[in-house]
């Protein structure tokens, strides 16, 4: 699915102290994070119904008397000036005290803590599969661009990239779950609890869905990156210097071609947690995506705030990680005393 937001690979920054550079990036992301936190803080206050809806369904709220409302407002500080409320909010974020869910009264932090590992398992497995398959095909497609197969694979990638995730999930359920009964279609564990086999079985269909729909994009990205590196001057010159083709591809093409792909995949990981909403919903997988969707559907504001926080945090962290790891792969992004 095209829910991936690829950012342009960070342009190498030359002639700047490495620490200053990294420090600058961290500060930039911190700023973005603070803005995102602010949005998150304002969210329940901005949506219809006002902040009191943090404490119950509309029906319950309607039954409250004016005194009771006032009491809740004082108790939770809604009467306080907005900046004090914001500080309180920041404090609660830092201390991971995210309140309790309105729908089932659970501690939000605990609910997220339960869901997060499942999402990480699901997303992690599918990212590994997508990356391996997508990059392999992309590299081959880039090398064999002139042959008919190259164009065929490209069209194939476009088709695969166009299938809606939820529809593919349905088809997989129909065939593998219902008709042939090969794989379970529901939940993350079998009736016998957490066994490795059970976990793996329950991963098959959701991971297949995420992988198949994710391959096309990585394939096309890798392929076009390969093409531009293959026609770049350093590679043309290496060819002229008599470096044989196999060695040329291995040593001179692959690494520069995969540099932007690395950034893409890092960002992808950040977004997949949010992108897994559909898959987790269809397969009733108990991860963060399903938790988020459930929270929105039930208008469970504390839970919503909590899950949004984690989702945004993941994106920002992966962005930061992409920036921090890039210099390890590209010497041009490294500066300072390595001469």
């Amino acid at each position, binding site marked *: 699915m095209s829910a991936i937001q690829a950012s342009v690979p960070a342009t190498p920054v030359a002639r*700047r102290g490495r620490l200053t550079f990294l420090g600058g990036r961290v500060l930039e992301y911190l700023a973005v994070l603070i803005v995102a936190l602010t949005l998150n803080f304002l969210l329940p206050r901005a949506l219809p119904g006002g902040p009191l809806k943090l404490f119950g369904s509309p029906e319950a709220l309607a039954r409250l008397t004016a005194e009771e409302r006032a009491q809740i407002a004082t108790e939770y500080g809604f009467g306080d000036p907005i900046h004090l409320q914001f500080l309180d909010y920041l404090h609660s974020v830092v201390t991971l005290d995210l309140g309790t869910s309105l729908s089932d009264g659970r501690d939000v932090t605990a609910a997220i803590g339960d869901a997060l590992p499942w999402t990480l398992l699901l997303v992690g497995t599918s990212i590994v599969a997508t990356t391996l398959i997508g990059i392999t095909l992309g590299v081959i497609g880039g090398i064999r661009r002139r042959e008919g197969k190259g164009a065929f694979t490209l069209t194939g990638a476009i088709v695969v990239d166009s299938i809606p995730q939820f529809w593919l999930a349905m088809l997989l359920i129909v065939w593998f779950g219902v008709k042939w009964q090969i794989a379970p279609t529901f939940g993350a564990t079998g009736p016998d609890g957490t066994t490795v086999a059970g976990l793996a079985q329950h991963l098959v269909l959701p991971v297949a869905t995420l992988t198949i729909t994710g391959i096309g994009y990585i394939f096309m990205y890798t392929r076009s990156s390969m093409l531009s590196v293959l026609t770049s001057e350093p590679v043309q*010159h290496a060819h002229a*210097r008599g470096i044989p083709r196999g060695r040329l591809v291995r040593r001179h093409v692959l690494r520069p071609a995969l540099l932007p792909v690395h950034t893409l995949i890092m960002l992808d990981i950040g977004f997949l947690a949010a992108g897994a909403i559909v898959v987790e919903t269809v397969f009733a997988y108990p991860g963060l995506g399903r938790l988020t969707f459930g929270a929105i559907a039930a208008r469970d504001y504390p839970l919503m705030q909590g899950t949004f926080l984690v989702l945004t945090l993941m994106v920002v962290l992966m962005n930061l990680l992409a920036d921090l790891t890039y210099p390890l792969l590209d010497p041009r992004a490294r500066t300072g005393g390595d001469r």
Partner: protein
Amino acid sequence: MTLSVQDITVKYGGRLAVDHIDLEVADGEVAAIVGESGCGKTSLAHALVGLLPPNAEVSGRGVLRSDRHPALDLGALKDWRGIRGRRIGIVPQGAMSGLSPIHRVETQLREMLTLHEGSSEPTDLLERVGLSAGELPSYPYQLSGGQRQRVAIALSLAGDPDLLIADEPTTGLDAVVQGKVLKLISSLGISTLIVSHDMTGLLPYADRIAVMYAGRLAEVVPVTALHHGRHHPYTAGLLAATPSTDRSATWASIPGGAPAIGELPTGCCFAPRCPIAAEECHTEQPLLRVVGESEVACHRMDVANTATYPAVPRATSACGSPVLTMTGIRHTYRSRSRTTIALDGVDLEVGRGEIIGLVGESGSGKSTLARIALGLIRPTAGRVRLGDDEVTGARGQRLRALQRRVGFVHQDPYDSLHPGMKVWSLIAEPLVIARVPRGERAAKVRAALASAGLPDSLLDGFPGQLSGGQRQRVAIARSLVNDPELVVADEASSMLDVSTRGGIATTLRSVATERGLAVVFVTHDMGEAIQSCDRIVVLRHGKVVDAGTCSQISSSPDHEYTAQLLAASHH
């Protein structure tokens, strides 16, 4: 080792790019193939090393003989393993940007040594090209352009080749560095074939020069014989078209332009541009024959010494009142990480009818200064006056009104003309912008076109149909059309062939004289400035290091840097 090129022909989809070339490179000799863009020199070199694109058809032989290896026919070779890098070392065009960006110099050298079974050490290779072992752990981006070119040469030497082929080894380097790189190549003691567009730059370093024109050899001449005896009119033209730093020498240009691939005229390809062409030149193709020390393909060698080309005229009148006055110009570029001082207190005054040469190498700030004069960049400090009007601080309508009094000729004739506009609209654009009444436009456009030396017949064409020289003339016509007081020409000839550069300078001189224009001529070529300007200002690192009349600068430069530039540019 010898290389014997026999009857090599290259066609692209049936269109002839290289036409039956024979050439010998003797043991230890530095031979050069010289010619202008599109003459087939690169195709010839690529044909010898199997690097032509797949749509090219090659025929003929290129026999490589050496006492260490069996003889080899490069023309018939299909499998290039063990040839490139080992028997023939290649320094590709644009080698500075062709090093692997992600490997250290040492790694790259070791790769070539292992691959081509070289016997030396990376340090030895670096020493041979004049670099210290300290550069071994560097990445290419940490080296200067000249250093990278040296590393590229070192890489080509790793396999201890019999023959070195260097394709445009000086392009993109500053003049001073160009000489050093060529000197290095010629001192390696290997048989070398250099491909270049810059004949005079090669003279001190090459042994023999093969001049190509439109896919054929015009002349093959030992360098020692180049300045005396009889030569092909094209060779003589190229020599005359290269601006000398000696003000007493004249600078000429060859009229017209080279024919395109696939549109070669019958007979001698050069005949349409040749000042001494006779009837037989248009019908019969001349063959190479020995004339004195050289081989020349020309029917008219008996009268070859009478060939003369139009010279670039000098100033005839004294300059008038100041048009552009710039005082104390400072400019700094600020990025997030650092500030660069592009200009640091520059003064400049240009009067009516005067051409000022603004000379400097890359990074000298000359282009920034030109853009400040055009009102495109606002200087950090300093004053700019156009006539009696203050440009500094002008914004919006007032700035645009001032800009309409200045013409601009951009460096790049290919990108500076909107590809979707016809020549007529291109030239008329300043009039439309300045809201000149419709009725007056036609006369102005025709007058400007004539001043720029172009026929009316081009008005209906698109720039895509024009040659580089014609395009630049369209750009000049556009800059003149609204009767400006000042024209700024930013490296206006740098992307053109040598033979047509003088033509642009001639045009600028004639408009300066006829229209009483002030001209700022930005260039990196000291010779060109000395030949075509009245006064020269030499910029370095954003400061004026030298200024004076052309004769002062050329005969007695004040500053050591000016002397270096003079020494580096043409001899």
